[in-house]
C-alpha cells in the first residue's frame, strides 16, 4: 500500500469530511492565546528558567520549561545537588498550580460572616492599607499581640517572617507542619546539639533501616532518598545494599524494601532499643567512636541491657525474636548502616523516645562522620541582614499550644497565616476553629482559598514559585552547603498577585518607625541580593564571579549556589563536643504490657500521601487522577483493612464502612490488603478538603478530623497513630 496515493484523494475526498468536519479533525486546531501578551518569544523555541519547589521539605531545584510564552513543563535541575535532574510526582504537576482555574486572582476582603466564603475583590493598596491599620492597632496597645502562623519555612522567607515578628513587642511565631517530624529535630538537638535534619550519605551505605518514615514516597525528601536508595541498591556493581522498613503499614517504602517488619504502632521505640540490646549484648558496637566521641554510654548500656530484652519486646512489638536478632547482627556486621526515624512513629507520647532511641542506635553503629553514615548540614555562608536589638520569638508548635493552654488565642489581636492549612490538618477536637474565631483580624497569604483561608478576613494572593523571587536552604540536605535560588520566569505575574515577603516589605514601609528601619530594602529581590552577597564574598562553590552583580545574575541563571568540595562535617555541637546518650527522654518508653485490649477497636494509622503529602497538592487534577501507588484509588479516599480482620467483620473489598473515633466519624470505601497489621486501620492524609478549588473540594475524607488531640507536654505535632477507632460496615442501599 503506497502512502503516496494515500492522500492523493484526500484533497478530492476532503469534502466527505465537510459533513463531519474531517478536513481538520475537531479540537486539534484551536490556537492557544497566551495570557501574558507582551511576552517576547519565538514560537517553537524552548527556554529554561530555574526555580525551586515548595511542595515538601525536600526543596528540589527545578527547571521550568517555557514554550510560546507559556510554562509547559517542570524538570529537575541537573546541577542541583538535591534533585540532580529528577523530580517527584508533585513537582511534575506544578505547571497546573500556576494555571489553576481556581487561583486567587487578586486580594479578597471578607464580606458576611467569617467562613461563609463571600469575598469582595479589592486592590492591593486597600489590602495593604487594611493590614497596616490592623498592625498599627496591635502596636499601640502592648496587651495586643501579633501572631504569625507558618508552616516549616526555610531560607530567607523564614528570616523575613522572624524579622517581621521581632519588630513587635508582644509577638508569637506559631508553626504548624503536620508531618514536620518535630520530635526528630528535638532528639537531634538533645543528642548532638544540632537542631537540623541529618544528611545521610546513602550512596555509600550498605544497610538502611527506616523506623516509621516512608522516606521514598512523601515525607522527608523523596527525590534525594529515591536517588540514594536507587544507588544503594544498584549503583555499585557487585554490591547491593539492603533496605528494611519498620512500619505498621506496607507503604511504598516498605513495598520497595527487602524486608518489612510490621511493628505495632507505638512499639517502635522499644523495638529500636531491643536492636540496641542485641548489639550491646554481643558487643558489635563501634568501640572507637563510642570511647572518644560519646558520653553517658555506660548508663545507657545498663538501662538497655536491663529493660529491653528482645524476647519481651518481640511479643509486644509483633515482630519475631529471630528477626530482631538477625536484623540487629546484619546492621552491625554489614555496615555502614543508617537508621532513619519519621512520620507517625515520631509523633504521639512515644515519639520523642523513638527519635532519641534511633539516634542512639546510629551512635552505637558509629555512623556519625563515617563514609556511608551521617553528617550534619552546613548552612551556606549568607551575609547577615543588619542586626536588630529586638528579640526574635522562638517558634512554638501551634498544636502544643492549642492542647496545653486553655485559651491559646489570648491577647492575639492580629494573625497572619502563610504556607499552612491547620483547619484541614488539625483534629477538630484541637479547637482550631475556636482559636481562629476569637482573633479579631486574620490575614492569609495563599494562592488558593483553602480550608484555613476560608476563615480569614483578608486573603493576600501569593505568586507561585514561577512568578516570584525566592530562595531555599534544603533541609535535609546532602551535607554540603546548598542554597537554591529562583527568579520569576515572566515579566509580570499571571494575575494581580504578590509574594509574601514583598507584602511584608510594603506593610513595614506603611507602618514606619522601627518596623520600616528593620527592612531597608525596596523589594525582596534586593533583600535576597544583600544576603547572597555573602556567597559571592567567599568566592568558592559552584558560582564564583568577579563582581557581585555578575555573581547575582549567574546564580539566578544556575538556580542557586552550592559548594561541592567542602569537607563533610560531623562534629557535635554539645557543650563538650561529644554525642550524649540522652537518658531522660527514654523514661517515657516502657514495655506497656497492656493486654490486647478491646479487639473491636483498631489503631488509626495516618500517613502522608505520595501525591498530596499533607493535602498541600490535592488541588492539582493530575495528582487527583493519579492512581495511588499502594491502593490505586483515584479522585477519592479508601481505608485499608487487613484481609483477615475484614473477613472477621465480613467487610469485602469496596464496601462502604464507617470509621468512628471518640471525636468524630466518617464514611469511606474499604480496601482489603495484605500489607497492613490486623489491629491497624490506615487512612491517607491529603483528601477531604472543605474548600480547596474544584478538584479537591469535598473529595475523599480527611483522617485528621478523627484524631484525638491528646494533651502531652512534649507533643510537637498531632499524634498520628495514637487514636483508636471502631469500624462498622454500612448496608449499601444502592
Amino acid at each position, binding site marked *: 500500500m503506497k502512502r503516496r*496515493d494515500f492522500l492523493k*484523494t484526500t484533497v478530492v475526498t476532503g469534502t466527505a469530511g465537510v459533513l463531519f468536519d474531517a478536513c481538520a479533525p475537531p479540537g486539534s486546531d484551536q490556537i492557544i492565546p497566551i495570557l501574558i501578551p507582551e511576552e517576547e518569544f519565538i514560537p517553537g523555541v524552548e527556554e529554561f528558567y530555574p526555580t525551586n519547589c515548595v511542595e515538601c521539605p525536600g526543596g528540589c531545584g527545578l527547571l521550568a520549561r517555557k514554550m510560546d510564552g507559556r510554562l509547559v513543563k517542570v524538570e529537575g535541575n541537573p546541577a542541583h545537588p538535591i534533585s540532580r535532574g529528577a523530580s517527584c510526582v508533585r513537582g511534575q504537576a506544578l505547571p497546573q498550580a500556576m494555571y489553576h482555574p481556581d487561583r486567587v486572582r487578586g486580594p479578597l476582603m471578607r464580606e458576611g460572616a467569617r467562613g461563609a466564603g463571600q469575598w469582595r475583590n479589592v486592590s492591593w493598596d486597600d489590602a495593604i492599607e487594611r493590614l497596616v491599620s490592623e498592625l498599627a492597632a496591635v502596636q499601640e496597645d502592648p496587651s495586643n499581640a501579633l501572631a504569625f502562623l507558618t508552616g516549616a519555612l526555610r531560607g530567607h522567607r523564614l528570616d523575613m517572617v522572624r524579622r517581621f515578628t521581632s519588630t513587635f513587642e508582644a509577638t508569637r511565631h506559631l508553626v504548624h507542619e503536620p508531618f514536620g517530624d518535630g520530635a526528630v529535630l528535638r532528639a537531634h538537638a538533645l543528642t548532638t546539639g544540632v537542631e537540623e535534619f541529618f544528611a545521610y550519605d546513602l550512596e555509600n551505605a550498605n544497610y538502611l533501616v527506616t523506623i516509621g518514615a516512608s522516606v521514598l514516597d512523601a515525607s522527608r525528601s523523596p527525590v534525594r532518598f529515591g536517588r540514594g536508595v536507587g544507588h544503594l541498591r544498584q549503583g555499585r556493581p557487585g554490591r547491593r545494599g539492603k533496605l528494611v522498613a519498620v512500619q505498621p503499614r506496607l507503604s511504598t517504602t516498605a513495598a520497595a524494601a527487602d524486608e518489612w517488619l510490621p511493628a505495632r504502632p507505638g512499639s517502635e521505640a522499644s523495638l529500636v532499643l531491643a536492636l540496641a540490646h542485641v548489639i550491646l549484648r554481643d558487643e558489635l558496637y563501634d568501640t572507637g567512636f563510642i570511647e572518644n566521641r560519646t558520653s553517658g554510654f555506660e548508663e545507657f548500656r545498663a538501662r538497655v541491657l536491663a529493660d529491653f530484652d528482645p524476647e519481651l519486646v518481640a511479643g509486644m512489638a509483633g515482630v519475631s525474636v529471630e528477626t530482631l536478632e538477625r536484623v540487629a547482627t546484619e546492621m552491625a556486621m554489614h555496615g555502614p548502616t543508617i537508621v532513619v526515624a519519621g512520620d507517625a512513629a515520631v509523633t504521639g507520647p512515644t515519639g520523642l523516645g523513638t527519635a532519641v532511641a534511633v539516634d542512639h542506635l546510629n551512635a552505637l553503629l558509629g555512623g556519625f562522620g563515617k563514609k556511608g553514615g551521617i553528617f550534619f548540614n552546613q548552612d551556606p555562608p549568607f551575609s547577615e541582614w543588619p542586626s536588630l536589638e529586638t528579640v526574635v520569638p522562638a517558634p512554638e508548635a501551634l498544636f502544643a499550644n492549642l492542647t496545653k493552654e486553655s485559651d491559646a488565642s489570648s491577647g492575639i489581636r492580629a494573625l497572619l497565616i502563610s504556607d499552612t492549612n491547620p483547619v484541614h490538618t488539625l483534629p477538630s477536637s484541637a479547637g482550631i476553629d475556636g482559636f481562629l474565631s476569637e482573633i479579631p483580624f486574620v490575614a492569609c497569604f495563599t494562592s488558593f482559598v483553602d480550608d484555613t483561608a476560608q476563615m480569614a478576613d483578608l486573603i493576600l494572593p501569593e505568586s507561585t514559585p514561577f512568578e516570584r523571587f525566592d530562595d531555599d536552604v534544603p533541609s535535609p540536605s546532602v551535607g554540603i552547603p546548598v542554597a537554591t535560588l529562583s527568579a520569576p520566569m515572566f515579566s509580570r505575574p499571571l494575575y494581580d498577585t504578590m509574594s509574601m515577603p514583598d507584602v511584608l516589605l510594603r506593610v513595614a514601609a506603611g507602618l514606619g518607625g522601627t518596623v520600616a528601619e528593620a527592612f531597608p530594602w525596596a523589594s525582596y529581590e534586593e533583600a535576597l541580593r544583600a544576603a547572597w552577597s555573602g556567597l559571592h564574598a567567599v568566592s568558592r562553590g559552584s558560582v564564583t564571579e568577579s563582581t557581585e552583580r555578575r555573581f547575582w545574575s549567574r546564580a539566578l541563571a544556575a538556580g542557586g549556589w552550592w559548594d561541592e568540595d567542602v569537607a563533610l562535617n560531623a562534629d557535635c555541637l554539645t557543650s563538650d563536643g561529644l554525642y550524649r546518650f540522652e537518658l531522660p527522654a527514654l523514661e517515657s518508653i516502657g514495655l506497656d504490657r497492656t493486654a490486647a485490649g478491646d479487639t473491636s477497636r483498631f489503631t488509626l494509622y495516618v500517613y502522608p500521601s505520595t501525591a498530596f503529602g499533607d493535602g498541600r497538592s490535592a488541588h492539582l487534577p493530575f495528582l487527583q487522577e493519579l492512581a495511588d501507588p499502594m491502593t490505586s484509588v483515584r479522585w477519592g479516599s479508601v481505608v485499608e483493612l487487613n484481609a483477615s480482620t475484614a473477613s472477621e467483620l465480613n467487610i469485602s473489598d469496596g464496601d462502604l464502612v464507617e470509621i468512628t473515633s471518640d471525636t468524630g466519624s466518617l464514611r469511606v470505601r474499604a480496601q482489603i490488603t495484605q500489607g497492613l497489621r490486623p489491629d491497624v486501620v490506615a487512612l491517607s492524609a491529603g483528601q477531604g478538603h472543605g474548600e480547596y478549588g474544584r478538584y479537591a473540594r469535598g473529595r475523599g475524607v480527611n483522617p485528621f478530623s478523627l484524631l484525638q488531640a491528646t494533651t502531652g507536654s512534649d507533643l510537637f505535632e498531632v499524634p498520628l497513630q495514637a487514636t483508636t477507632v471502631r469500624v462498622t460496615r454500612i448496608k449499601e442501599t444502592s
Partner: protein
Amino acid sequence: MEALDRNQAIEDSLLRPVFQTSRKLWVVVAMLLAVIAYGGFQWAHQLKEGLIVAGMNQPVYWGLYLTNYVFFIGISHAGTLISAILRLTDAEWRRPITRAAEAITVFALLMGTSNVLWHLGRPELIYIPMLHPQPLSPLIWDVACISVYLMGSITYLYLPLIPDLALLRDRSPRLRWLYRWLSLGWQGTPKQHKLLDRAIGFMAVAIIPIAVSVHTVVSWVFAMTLVPMWHSAIFGPYFVVGAIFSGIAALLIAMAILRKAFHLEPFFRPIHFNNLGLLMLTMACLWLYFTFAEHMTVWYGNEPDEVAVLTSRLSGAFSTPFWTMITCCFVIPLCILSFKRTRTIIGTVIASCAVLIGMWLERFIIVISSASYPRSEFMHDGGLYSPALVEIALTAAQFACFALLYIVFAKLFPLVSIWEVKEGDQTELEAELTGTVEARL
C-alpha cells in the same frame, strides 16, 4: 383445468399480502418507526459527544456494537446456506421457504454492517479502509468478504424473484413501472427459464463458500489477536456452526410470524418446521461439541492468562450469562426437538427463540469476557463493562429496522416464490399419478 385454477388459487393467496395491508400492520410499522427514531436520536447524541456516552472502557474496548455485528452476520448465514443447500439437494420442501430465508440474509447483513458505523470512533472516515486498506488486517478481510457476500446474496435474492416480478408487473394495481423495470422483460419463455435456472444454480453453488468465508473471517477478527480465549484455531468453524445454528432459528421465527401475519398456513406446513427443527437439533449438537472442545482445551491446558478468562466464564462474573447460554442453546432445543410429539410449530419456535437468545449471549461472552481479562492482570476491568443507554437503544433500533425492512419487502414482493410453488405443485400432481403406479410396483 383443475391445474389452472390450482395455480390461480396459489397466485391469489400469495399476492394478497402484497396488495392489501391490514390496519394492524400500520400500527406495527408505526411502533417500529418510533424505536428506530429513538435509536437515531441516540446515535446523533453519540456522534456529538463521542463514544464517551457508550459503556465501553479500558480494557473492554469492544462492546455491544461488536456483539450485535457478529450476531447479525451470523443470522445472515441461514438464508443463503439453507436455501442454497436445499436447492442443490433438490429438497422439494424448500420451495416456499427459500425467499424468506434469502430476505433474512440481505437485511441481517445490512443491520450487521451498520454496527460498524456505531462502533467506530470516527465514522466519518469509514471510506479510508475501503480506499487504502492495510491488507494484513482481519478487519479488511471482513470488509472484503462481507461486501462480496452482500452483493452475492442480493443477486441470489433477486434472481428467483424475476418471474414473480413479471407476474406482479401484469397484476399489480400500483408500481407497475417498478416491476416492469425490475423484471427485465421476463416473458416466461423456455429459453429465459433455462437461463434463469442455470444462473440460480450457479449462484447456489457460489454463495456457499462465500458465506462460509464471511463468518470465518468475522471470527478471525478475534482469533488473529493474542487475546486469551480468542487466539484459538477452532474459532473459524465454531463461528460458522454458530452462524448456521442462529440462522435456522431466525428463519423458523420469521416463518412462524409470516404464517400468522399473512395467513400462509398452506405454504408453511408443519413438515417445514419439522425438517428445520431436525436441522437445528443437529446444529445444536455440533455447536455444543465445538463449545466443549474449546473450553476443555483451555481448562486442560491450564495457561494462567487463559484460565483467568475461563474461570470468569464458568464461575466468575460471566457465569450467569454462560450457563444461560448453555441451557438456551443446547438443553432447551434438545428437549423440545428430539421428540416428534413436541417438534410442532410452537415447539420449534420456542426452541429457536431460546437459541437466538443463547447465541446472542454466546457472542456477548466471547467478546466481553476476553476483553475484560487481558494478560496484564493489573488491568483487569475493575468496573465490569455494562452497556449504556445508547448501546441498548441502538440494539433495539437494529432489531426494529430489521423487522421494518422485512415488512416493506413483504409489501413490495411476495414472500413465497410463486413460480417455484406452482412448479412444485405440478410435479406433486404428476408424482401422485405416477406415485400410485410406483407404490404398486
